[in-house]
């Protein structure tokens, strides 16, 4: 059998399609090595077969590729990269990207809005607290003013009272502070004694001022008081009669007899 007859015997197709026996295949390989025409004929049929079958594709299930890739241990990223090179998948992945990007933008926007609103909320809370504090301040100021006003009204009423005897007490020569001054308002009808401090130094610790009435040359306790500033009358004990009034600085709680060395002011009752 010459080479041309051998080629046309059908052995080429039989060998390529795997239908030849082992002996036939061995012979065919020897012929290919020996004769270029046989090799060329085989190559031509292989290309023909490949082109023919490549026109007869059926799509395998879409998930099969990733199943194969995972079985042979190829990283998923490589599969994803390979998928990206398939043009039909690009729009979908692109769309997914847009969706992902859009959702990230929305998320970022939402976070920023939340921060803004949180800031606004904190500002509002702070402002509200400020207002509450201010209002409390106003209320407390108002209370103070009312108290002061009441005191002033009382003071004016006392001073207006025509039955009131006024005893002005000035600093005695031996007074620790000669510029001291105080005034006794003595109701001649009810015999109540009110004291107005014009000027007295702040008492040292553990000491209190004490008002005395001089009755028949002897000092009688009228009451202890703390130095009060402003137009404020202190109501003390009731005294039936007196020739003079005086203030000494005594131990806290007052004394039975005055310390003459610590007399600040004294004034005689006139009329």
């Amino acid at each position: 059998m010459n080479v041309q007859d051998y080629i046309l015997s059908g052995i080429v197709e039989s060998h390529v399609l795997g239908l030849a026996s082992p002996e036939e295949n061995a012979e065919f390989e020897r012929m290919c090595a020996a004769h270029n025409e046989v090799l060329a004929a085989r190559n031509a049929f292989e290309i023909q077969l490949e082109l023919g079958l490549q026109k007869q594709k059926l799509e395998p299930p879409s998930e099969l590729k990733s199943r194969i890739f995972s079985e042979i241990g190829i990283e998923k990223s490589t599969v994803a990269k390979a998928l990206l090179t398939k043009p039909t998948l690009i729009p979908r992945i692109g769309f997914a990207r847009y969706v992902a990007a859009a959702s990230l933008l929305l998320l970022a926007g939402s976070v920023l809005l939340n921060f803004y609103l949180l800031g606004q909320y904190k500002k509002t809370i702070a402002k509200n607290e400020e207002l509450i504090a201010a209002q409390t301040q106003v209320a407390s100021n108002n209370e103070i003013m009312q108290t002061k006003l009441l005191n002033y009204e009382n003071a004016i009423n006392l001073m207006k009272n025509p039955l009131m005897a006024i005893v002005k007490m000035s600093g005695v020569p031996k007074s620790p502070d000669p510029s001291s001054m105080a005034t006794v308002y003595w109701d001649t009808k009810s015999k109540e004694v009110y004291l107005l401090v014009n000027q007295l130094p702040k008492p040292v610790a553990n000491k209190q001022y004490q008002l005395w009435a001089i009755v028949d040359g002897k000092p009688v306790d009228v009451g202890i008081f703390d130095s009060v500033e402003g137009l404020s009358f202190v109501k003390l004990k009731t005294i039936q009669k007196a020739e003079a009034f005086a203030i000494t600085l005594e131990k806290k709680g007052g004394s039975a007899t005055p310390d003459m060395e610590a007399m600040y002011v004294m004034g005689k009752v006139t009329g």
Partner: protein
Amino acid sequence: MGLPGTYSEQELTSALKAKDEQAFSYLYDNYSGSLYSIILQIVKSPEVASDVLQEVFVNIWRKIESYDPIKGRLFTWMLNISRNASIDMLRSKNYQNSQKNQEITDNVYGDSQVTQTSIDSIGLSKFLGKLRPEQRVLIELAYFKGYTHDEIAQIEDIPLGTVKTRIRNALLQLRELLK
């Protein structure tokens, strides 16, 4: 070569032997369709064909070292791996059990209707339709069922020489039909 694609046959073979994953991905994208088609024509069931195709590509990846370009083209090598794997599947006990009920009438032993039921409008089966009936049954048994010439001679009760001649003549027509 003359085939479409971004790799030449030689480049693709070298890249695959170097375990280039991109090349393997290209190989799958380019050839899974035609190989799946052949496998499906042999095993008939899409589920089974998918399993076989998976096995085929795993074997291509693992056994690419054994591919010798001197003996033939890469596609021929992959085609024969696919056909062999499909026929192995046909002969596996699991497959036969699952197909027994469905193919009770599709008995290759002497049933003349066998070739009719196996002819599809795709791939090589399409070519079968153009053969004379006595050639068609032999190609069916040889290529799609994987029987040896000796087995076919027994099955069809014809001399071995006749089997060989008919198959070869049929294959010579295939060359013309593929043009």
